């Protein structure tokens, strides 16, 4: 037994590293010091005050937040969390809505059958439709509750008056988003709810054909405030297309722009209101 097997130091060391768990530290080090990693993540994850600040300040999604905030603004009893939930529900409708757009055509002949197709043939189509509709309904409720909370805490008072005005616009656009989406299933519920709603435009003073003083302006059922909205004198295929464009492009763009202003102004007006 004089002949000893030649030692391969590499293997012994390697096994030792695995046994002691040192290998994982080394792999982690290899990864986190790579160019790919350091170019993506600008700071470490260790829980240091510096990293807590960088976590917010160097992240495009989180940097809407301030780096530090008052303790009272964290209390759900104070904020009800309703503004954030409204925004989350808006994002949910954007995601599910884009998926629905792949299957839905806003054309009189097709729209209703695309709905049936979505519900019965498209994988998870029914779920996407349900999530889109219920998130939209929930959003109407949460935005009202958000407004109620802001009123009860007097958060519209100086210096936040302007942001309250933006908020009122956003409430209005939330309702209009929901209302324009209401027509798209192109079923009886949709058509007649929108008929009832848009019939009101007919009564607009001066600009609606049945409104007061219309005879002095000369509007007709075919050319008045209502026909501008629905592209005719009845809720028909042109109304479907108009509401589709308003619902998917026009109002979300305006509401999105106003949301940016709304969130930005929270920061500029001194963060979430508090007793200071």
């Amino acid at each position, binding site marked *: 037994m004089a002949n000893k097997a030649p030692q391969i130091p590499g293997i012994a060391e390697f096994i030792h590293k695995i046994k002691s768990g040192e290998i994982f530290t080394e792999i982690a080090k290899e990864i986190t010091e790579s160019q790919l990693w350091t170019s993506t993540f600008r700071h470490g994850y260790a829980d240091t005050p510096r990293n807590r600040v960088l976590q917010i300040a160097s992240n495009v999604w989180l940097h809407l937040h301030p780096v530090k905030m008052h303790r009272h603004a964290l209390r759900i009893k104070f904020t009800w969390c309703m503004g954030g939930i409204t925004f*989350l529900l808006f994002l949910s409708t954007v995601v599910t809505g884009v998926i629905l757009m792949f299957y839905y055509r806003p054309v009189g002949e097709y729209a209703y059958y695309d709905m049936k197709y979505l519900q019965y043939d498209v994988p998870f189509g029914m779920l996407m439709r349900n999530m889109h509709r219920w998130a939209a309904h929930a959003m109407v409720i949460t935005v009202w509750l958000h407004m109620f909370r802001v009123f009860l805490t007097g958060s519209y008072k100086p210096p936040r008056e302007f942001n309250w005005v933006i908020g009122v616009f956003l409430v209005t656009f939330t309702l209009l988003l929901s209302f324009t989406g209401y027509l798209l299933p192109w079923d009886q519920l949709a058509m007649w709810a929108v008929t009832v709603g848009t019939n009101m435009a007919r009564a607009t003073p001066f600009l609606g054909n049945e*409104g007061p003083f219309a005879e002095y302006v000369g509007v007709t059922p075919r050319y008045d405030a209502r026909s501008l909205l629905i592209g005719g004198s009845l809720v028909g295929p042109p109304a479907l297309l108009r509401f589709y464009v308003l619902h998917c492009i026009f109002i979300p763009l305006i509401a999105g722009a106003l949301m940016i202003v709304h969130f930005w102004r929270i920061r500029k007006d001194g963060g979430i209101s508090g*007793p200071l």
Partner: protein
Amino acid sequence: MAQAAAAPKKKVEGVPEKLHVWPYLVRLEFLCALVVIIALTVWSIVIDAPLEEAANPTKTPNPSKAPWYFLGLQDILVYFDPWFAGVVAPVLIIVGLMLIPYLDVNPKGNGYYTYHERKVAIWVYCFGFLVLWIALIIMGVFLRGPGWNLFMPWQYWDPHKVVALVSVDLPYSFGFRDYTWSAIFGGGVLLAYFGIGTGVYFFMERKALKSVGFLRMFLKIQLALIMMGIVIKIVLRIGFNVKYIMVTPWISI
């Protein structure tokens, strides 16, 4: 010192303490988002969105209802003409809401819950939101049946329910039979309502006129009178069968 004097009586926290948003706020937002998304998913799995038969312009359902969030406005159509209930009232609601921060100059109650420091503001908003908006929506969704008639939840929605049309115009019940005089009478009643209301308010708040300003006080009382006027009109219609207060060939209120 000035800050200390302006500080509200009620303090939520003794000393305001600053916290890092990461992790204290972000984890809260994350948990909240998780709960909402789970709730939404479960709701969407359990309950299907409605889809009725295909749209048919020749078949009007009875009742035809607007989306539920507009049913408060649709209900006001019983008491007002469409130009008011469907156009002017929503515009007034939106504009009135936007004006709130510019009309309410009470510096107290900024950033904390209080009832005692701003009783009137809380009452007005709660009345408008909870009664005129939410309660009317609940009524519109559950209690309005065919012909927009009122049905209790246990009643059958009879499409042939006969409701006597007994409402008459206010000028008519006061004996005015021709257009001109009933228009003058109705206009007079409305002018008196707004004029006396404004006058009484300005007299009672005359000390505040200098600090609050004329325009602010004027707009405030007009909006309040319109809101109260809607309630008065509903009471007059239901309790006293009054159809219009003022009738003219162009507009009737």
